[in-house]
């Protein structure tokens, strides 16, 4: 089992529904977020390209945040999901410094928090909250180890990219372009 998320930038409208849904699903305190939207504009009027995408922890295979964690609070669970055990986290911030995507934040309660791929929902057989609300249905989630899954098929058939591959983290959130 290797979970992955795919976001189709050709369809994402940057509405931030995924951000609010994560907020309410995961009780992310106001002013913090586990996911966010970036907008990139290239070119000169009227020859322009606009890319909107929803970003979050990439659940990297080669996760520096896990490696640098002194307590083991950051760890990888089944399906390649990078998790943080709140009661083991001392809030040293090393993982935050180590993440090239700035995907983690210090929760006001002190521990470090970030996207969990909605692990608690997956356990119940539900899709991550962000994926389940996206009005453009541009987000996909599934198992890369299964060659017939929607995500495997999309990666096979569509042009895609990951963020900052040069950071060498082997991200598992993919963007269709």
């Amino acid at each position, binding site marked *: 089992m290797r979970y992955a998320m795919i976001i189709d930038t*050709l*369809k994402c*409208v*940057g*509405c*931030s*529904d995924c*951000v*609010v*849904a994560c*907020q*309410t*699903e*995961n*009780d*992310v*305190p*106001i*002013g913090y*977020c586990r996911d966010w939207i970036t907008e990139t*504009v290239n*070119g*000169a*009027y*009227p020859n*322009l*390209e*606009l*890319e*909107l995408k929803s970003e979050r922890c990439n659940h990297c295979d080669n996760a520096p945040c896990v490696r640098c964690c002194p307590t083991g609070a950051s760890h990888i669970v089944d399906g390649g999901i990078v998790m943080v055990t*709140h009661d083991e986290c001392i809030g040293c911030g090393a993982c935050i410094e180590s993440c090239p995507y700035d995907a983690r934040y210090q*929760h*006001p*309660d002190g521990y470090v928090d970030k996207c969990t791929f909605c692990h*608690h929902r997956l356990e119940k057989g539900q899709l991550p909250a962000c994926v*389940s*609300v*996206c*009005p*453009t*249905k*541009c987000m996909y989630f599934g198992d890369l180890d299964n060659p017939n899954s929607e995500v495997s098929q999309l990666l096979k058939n569509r042009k895609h990219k990951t963020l900052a591959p040069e950071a060498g983290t082997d991200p598992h959130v993919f963007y269709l372009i």
Partner: protein
Amino acid sequence: MTTSRRKFIKISAIGLGGVAATTSALSMFGANSYLDDLVKQNVSKKFKRTATYCEVCFWKCAGWAHTDEDGEIKKIIGNDDDPHCNGRLCPRGTGGVGMYNDEDRLKTPLIRTTVNGEETFRKASWEEALDLIASKFKGFKDTYGAESVALFKHGSPGSHLEHLFKAFGSDTIAEPAYAQCRGPRETGFGLTFGSWIGSPEPTDIRDTKCLVLIGSHIGENMHNSQVQEMSDAIDNGATIITVDPRLSTAASKSEHWLAIKPATDIALLLSWMNVIIEEGLYNKKYVEKYGLGFDQLEAHVKQFTPEWAYGITTIEPKEIRKTARIMAAAAPSVIIHPGRHVTWYGDDSQRGRAIAMLNGLLGSWGNRGGFYFKESLKVPEFPHPEYPEPKWGWKEIGKKYPYAEMGITTELVQATIPSENNEYPIKAWLVAGTNLVNTLPQREKTLEAIEAVEFMVVIDTMPMEITGYADVVLPECTYLERYDDIRSMTNRIPSIAVRVPVVEPKYDSKPAWWISKEIGERLGLHDYFNYNDFEEVIDWQLHELGTSLEEMKKIGVKTFDRKSGPLFLEEGQDHYFYTPSGKIEFYSQQLADKGFDPMPVYTAHPEPPQGFYRLNYGRSPMHTFSRTINNPNLNALKSENTLWVNPKVARMMSLKTNQEVWLKNQDDIISTFSIKVRVTERVRWDSIYMYHGFGHNNKELTRAFGKGISDTELISKIAMDPLMGGTGLRGNFVAILTENPHKNTEI
């Protein structure tokens, strides 16, 4: 400066000790407990769900509000069976819980009073506030007639109050969703196809082969199922053509983005028709069978060649031809989208008509991938006596505009301002669910009317600008705390949805149905409100529809089979269009008879003078107008608007991203607040762009106050649509000020 009688009061700012103390104590307490709750690990997942439909905009998506064991609303999720949302709410709907949690909400009835020469609000009991309103309304009825009491409304509270007003004898009713919004397209399509577009738009976007968006910025305009279907269309390989002077999100998803010069769309539409007719690309069978006046149209558009349009629109003739051919190739599975907020330049009904005619030429009306025949379920009215016949009402007030089919807000405003030849003097206002100050153009005029009106009641959930001018403020509870009408709107299939209170009303707030009933009872209109609880009304109606409240509480949404026939025309089928001729009217005799152009023509509109830029505005996908700016969840996503400025302009004026600037419009109106510059290629060099709804100036909106600029404030010039009274808003020009113009004045 004249001192205004109806001085704007910042609620509780100078309130009586008691009011001030309770509100601030409550707001502090509210804020903290809200944050604390959010901070708690959401481990308990034993949620209860309650059926509701969303009130954050007017798409009214049905959803489930989830509450935890403590009765806290944790999240709101779309109802899978709802054709308006297909189980997915938009960001605003998902963030709707913030409407309930907002600790700045109105908390008690307030009555305007004078203490030591200072106007202020005092806290009042419902009893006192309602008695006051009823006695005032009676007084106006006795002196000037019930017609002199006007209702401005929008959204769900509207229908309850409309019922009260009609029972009371007033049809002096208007909402901004007409003359500031959809009105012109309804007229344009009505004149052509004999049918309104209505809401939701009956556009078969998911099955279309070609979607043409003219200024309609779906994706930023988050009307839910449209956004969903546009995405389906992308998946299905549909061609999207977007006409917009700005690189909208939709434009960025389009194969063809026509970066049109603002205010010239009619020229483009005429030249498209020219190409389609000249090249014989129109749907000949369809036009022959259903159309009327094609020959006149052919003759009319002959002159409007792409070369002609090029000079006006700056869109190259080959682009115009190419896109026309793409549409024709896709026809009849093509949608030239009617748009929604279409009050732009005053000739908007005619632009709406041009869009309708183009659709007519391509045969998309009544065809798959074009426009479907919508259907809704008629919800029977709860029994009540006939409404009395008012002597005059919105119709008479707007009679200058022969095609007005709803009240024109700005005409009601005008009728409130005393003048000698005012046939329909309005003396009192009840405003429910519309923030007129940030909604109507020509704010000065709105304020003049507010100053003149003798009595004004505002029913709102939030201390919005409009509440500050009221004599009585009534706090409505949010949609999550009340029953409302059964939602029955048009769609592919008829459906109904219910709104059931998820939690008890917070603070001392009440639902609009209760407020209407209580005022009604005090006005001796008991027979119109023959129930104790609105629940009874809904239950009765649901039984009439063959279901029950009990069932609806469990399912939230019920869909029904169509009764009006198939969604689309069958090959060669006869069809009656509700126009005078029963046909699609390319040439409109009724327009000609009334002295209007029977077919649209292009007229040039004013352009920005030297040093000025056209004020363009639109929707932020995470907000609804001014109503959500203070919503804690949505404010966190976008707390202020920015001023989009083309890099050329920025270079000329040495503007930097994030620099604070002020705006001054052609009438020397200066923005109250500053706005941060966003230097971006997404906007033309002759325009600036900003999201609508920001720049709140009521300090009670703690998150929203002073954040960004209100576009409304700068819209002092309007272009009236002579057909239906729409207020064209896009003809205002602004200069950018880099120095604080308020340096020496206090805001």
